[in-house]
C-alpha cells in the first residue's frame, strides 16, 4: 500500500517537473521579448491568485470543463473514444434555452427542469455514436466527430427559426426568463451555483467508479474486454450506459453554462468546452477525483494567459501554445514507460525503502 502511494507520488512529482519545464521553455522566450520579463512570468503564474475576482474566474472557467471532463472520463473508461461530448454540451445548452423559453415554469423548479431537459437532449449526441458502435461496430470516434457538426447546424437552425429574437442585433435567442438563471455566489464574478454541482458530480463520479459494483464492471469492460466477456458481463449494455451517462453529464454542463452565465443563447459555433473536457480527462488519467484539479489547472492557465493578453502586449494565442505544450508533455505517458525514467523511479523507491 505504502509502496503504491510512493510510486504514485513519484509519478505525480515527475509530472509537475515536466509541466514546470514546459511552462518555462515556452514562456521564457515570450517573456524575454517583453520590456519587463519578470512581470510576464509573475503575472502569468501568480496573477490568477492575485484577487478573489480572479480566483472566481478560475472556478467559473473550470465549472463546465469539470463536468465535461467527468463525462469524457466515464466514456473513456468504457473503452470507447466517443467525442460526442462537445455535441452534447452544445445540444444541452440549446435544449435548456428552448425549455426556458417554451415551458411556462416559475420559481425554484424552473432552472432544474431546464437543466434536466438539456441533459436529456444532450445525451443524444453521445448515444447515437455509442449505439452505432455497439450495434454495428462502426467507429464511434469518426461518427461522433461528424455528428457533432450535424447537431451544431441542427441547433443553429432551431435557434434561427424558433428561438431567435428579431429585435436583437445578432443571431441570438429571446431573453431567458429570470427564474431560469442560476444564482450568483460570489460578488464581482459570474460564479454561479453550477460550480457546486460540478464539484459534487466529480466526487460522486469518483465514489461510483471506485466504490461500487457498477464502477468496477465499467473498469473491467474498459481495461479488459476479453475478461468482461469471460465473466459474462453484459458488455454492450455497460458500454451503452456509459455513453448515456456521459452524454447526460455533458448535456447538463451545457445547460448549466447557458443558464449560469448568459441571459440569451448565442452559440453559433461549437463552444469547445467538450474538447477541453477530453483534455481534462486525459490529464486526470481518467480518474473522476483528479478531474477537479485538472480542470482547475487548465482554467488557471487560461486566466493567466488572459491576464497577459489584457495587461501586456502578449498575444492571447501564447496561452494556447503553453497549454498545448503541457498537454503534449503530460499525455506522453510513453515518457514514463521509458526505461531511464522507470529506473529513476525504481532507484528513488529503493532509497525511500532503505531510509
Amino acid at each position, binding site marked *: 500500500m505504502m509502496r503504491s502511494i510512493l510510486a504514485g507520488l513519484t509519478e505525480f512529482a515527475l509530472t509537475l517537473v515536466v509541466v514546470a519545464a514546459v511552462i518555462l521553455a515556452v514562456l521564457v522566450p515570450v517573456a524575454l521579448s517583453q520590456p519587463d520579463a519578470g512581470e510576464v512570468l509573475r503575472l502569468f503564474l501568480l496573477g490568477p491568485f492575485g484577487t478573489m475576482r480572479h480566483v472566481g474566474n478560475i472556478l467559473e472557467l473550470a465549472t463546465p470543463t469539470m463536468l465535461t471532463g467527468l463525462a469524457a472520463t466515464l466514456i473513456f473508461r468504457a473503452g470507447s473514444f466517443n467525442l460526442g461530448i462537445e455535441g452534447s454540451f452544445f445540444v444541452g445548452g440549446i435544449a435548456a434555452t428552448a425549455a426556458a423559453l417554451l415551458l411556462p415554469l416559475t420559481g425554484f423548479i424552473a432552472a432544474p427542469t431546464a437543466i434536466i431537459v438539456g441533459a436529456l437532449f444532450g445525451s443524444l449526441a453521445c448515444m447515437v455514436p455509442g449505439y452505432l458502435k455497439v450495434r454495428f461496430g462502426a467507429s464511434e470516434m469518426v461518427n461522433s466527430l461528424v455528428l457533432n457538426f450535424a447537431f451544431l447546424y441542427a441547433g443553429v437552425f432551431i435557434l434561427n427559426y424558433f428561438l431567435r429574437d428579431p429585435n436583437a442585433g445578432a443571431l441570438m435567442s429571446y431573453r431567458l426568463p429570470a427564474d431560469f438563471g442560476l444564482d450568483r455566489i460570489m460578488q464581482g464574478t459570474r460564479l454561479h451555483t453550477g460550480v457546486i454541482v460540478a464539484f459534487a458530480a466529480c466526487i460522486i463520479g469518483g465514489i461510483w467508479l471506485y466504490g461500487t459494483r457498477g464502477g468496477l464492471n465499467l473498469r473491467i469492460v474498459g481495461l*479488459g474486454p476479453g475478461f468482461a*466477456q469471460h*465473466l459474462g458481463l453484459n458488455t454492450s449494455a455497460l458500454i451503452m450506459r456509459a455513453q448515456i451517462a456521459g452524454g447526460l453529464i455533458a448535456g447538463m454542463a451545457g445547460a448549466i453554462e447557458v443558464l449560469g452565465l448568459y441571459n440569451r443563447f448565442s452559440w453559433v459555433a461549437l463552444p469547445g468546452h467538450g474538447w477541453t473536457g477530453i483534455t481534462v480527462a486525459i490529464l486526470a488519467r481518467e480518474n473522476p477525483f483528479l478531474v477537479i484539479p485538472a480542470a482547475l489547472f487548465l482554467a488557471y492557465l487560461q486566466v493567466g494567459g488572459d491576464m497577459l493578453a489584457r495587461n501586456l502586449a502578449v498575444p492571447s494565442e501564447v496561452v494556447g501554445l503553453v497549454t498545448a505544450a503541457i498537454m503534449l508533455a503530460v499525455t506522453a505517458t510513453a515518457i514514463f514507460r521509458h526505461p531511464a525514467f522507470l529506473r529513476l523511479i525504481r532507484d528513488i*523507491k529503493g532509497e525511500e525503502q532503505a531510509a
Partner: protein
Amino acid sequence: MEDAIPIVAFDKVAKTYPNGTVALSDASFGIRKGSIHAICGENGAGKSTLMKILFGLESPSAGQVMLDGAAVNTVTPDFAGRHGIGMVHQHFSLVPSLTVVENIILGHEPKRGVLIDARRARDEVIALARRYELDVPPDARIETLSIAAQQKVEILKALSRETRLLILDEPTAVLSPPEIEELFSRLRDLRDSGLTILFISHKLHEVRALADTVTVLRAGQVVDTCPLAEVSDAEITRMVMGRDVDVSRRQRQAANAPVLLELKNVSTAGNDPADRLTDISLTIRADEIVGVAGVDGSGQRGLAAVLSGLMALSTGTISFAGTDMTRASTAQWRRAGLAYLPADRFTQGGTPALSLMENAIAGTDGDPAIQWGPFLRRGAIRSRVQAMVREFAVRTRGIGERLDSLSGGNAQKLIAARELAGAPKLLLADQPTRGIDVASAAFLHGRIDAVARGGAAVLLITADLDELLRLADRVIVLFNGRIVADLPNKTDLTPAALGPYMLGLETAA
C-alpha cells in the same frame, strides 16, 4: 573435455531486488562448451533472474559472470548479441504480420545505403536455415505458420547472429509429442555442430531425454549441478521440490454417475481452425474429467468457446443438467454453474491493470457478503481475498497490487481461487498449468480433482500429456475440429499412443 574452460560460468552470483526479494544467492556453476545443459526449478526458484543476468537485462548484486573464463560486465548495450548469446522465449516475440525473413533480420537488417537490402536479407535467411537444417518458408507471414514452425523461426532468429550459446525457455510447452521429438533431434544436431544449448524446463522426462548436464535451482540457490547419467529422476525431483511428490493418477469414485453435459453434432463456422468444430458429439458425467488432446489449433478453443457462450453454434445442440443450453449466453452458463480457467490468463482470466482484489471479486455481482446495495464493502472484500490468497498459496506483494505484478503461475492460482469458489457444476480448464512449477501444478490438479469429486463435469484441455493422463478419466483427441479418438484412460494409455491420433494418422472414435 573435463578441464576445458566453460563457455559460461556463474561465480557466486546473487541478486537482491530493491524491495528486499532475494531472487538468487551465491549461485555458482559452469556450462560446458558444446553441451546441452538443463536448468530445473520451480517458478520463483531464480531461473528467470539468472537468465536475465546472463542476457544482460539485469545486473547481479554480487558475484560475476564469466564468459570463456573472463569476467564480463553483462549490463552493456547489446551484450547478448555481441557475445553470441541467443534466446528463445516461452512467449514468442515474432511480429505476426511480418514475413519469416523480416522477423529474423529485425534489429540487424543488412543495409544498402539507408534501405534494407531485401535480396541479401532473404539469401542470408535461406543460408541460415540450410546451415542449421531448420526448414521454414522464407516469405510466409508468421500468422500463417503453425506454432511448431513459428518456434523454428524463433530459433533461427536466435541463431542469426553468430550464436554460440542458445537459451531455450520452456520450448516444448506448445508442441505435440512428435513435434517435440523433432525439436529435440534438431537440438541434438545443433549441439553436435558445436553449439552450446541452455535448456530450461519443468518437465523431467524432457530434461532426461535431451540434456547432458542438469543444474537444479531451489529458492534462489543452486542445489546441485551434475551429469544426468549420475542422478535418478527421483533424486532430481527431490532436489527441485525439497521433498517427494505424489504423481499418481486420479481415482474416480463411481463410473456410472448421471450425464451432466451433452453435445450432439455440434459444428461451428470459424475463420481460424482453432475455433472450427465439425460434428462433435460428447457426453460428460458428473465426477468425470474428460481430457482433450490435440495439436494446438485443432478446435480446442472453439470447444471451450461454445461451452461458455462465447461462440454460437452453426448446427447441433448442447444440453447441461437437463436444460437446453444451445443458445445460452456466458451469463446463463455462469448461472448454470460454469467455472472456466482460460488458457489466456491475462486477457481472459483477468485484467492486468486492475488489482488482485478487483480481479478476485470480479463477476460476483450482487453477493451480499461483499456488497451493500451498489457499494463494495472494502473490509469484507479485503478479508475474503486475503483468505483466497492464503488458501491457494498465491505469492503476492499485497492484494492491492496489480495482477501483472504476479508471475504467470501465481496469477493462475488467483484466477483458480475465483473460479473454483462456490460449487461449480461444469469446469472448463484450458491449459490450467502451462508454465507453472511442479508444486503449484500438483496443487491445481488436486483442486480440479476435488471439483470433479464434488459432482461436477470437467473438461480438461491441455497440451501437457502427462497432466492429461494423470487427471482424465477419458481422453478425446481432436484433429481438424473433429473427435478422432475417444479412449478410456487406462494404464496402458501413453503419450506415445496418443501421437498418431493427434496427427490425424489414425482414428478410434
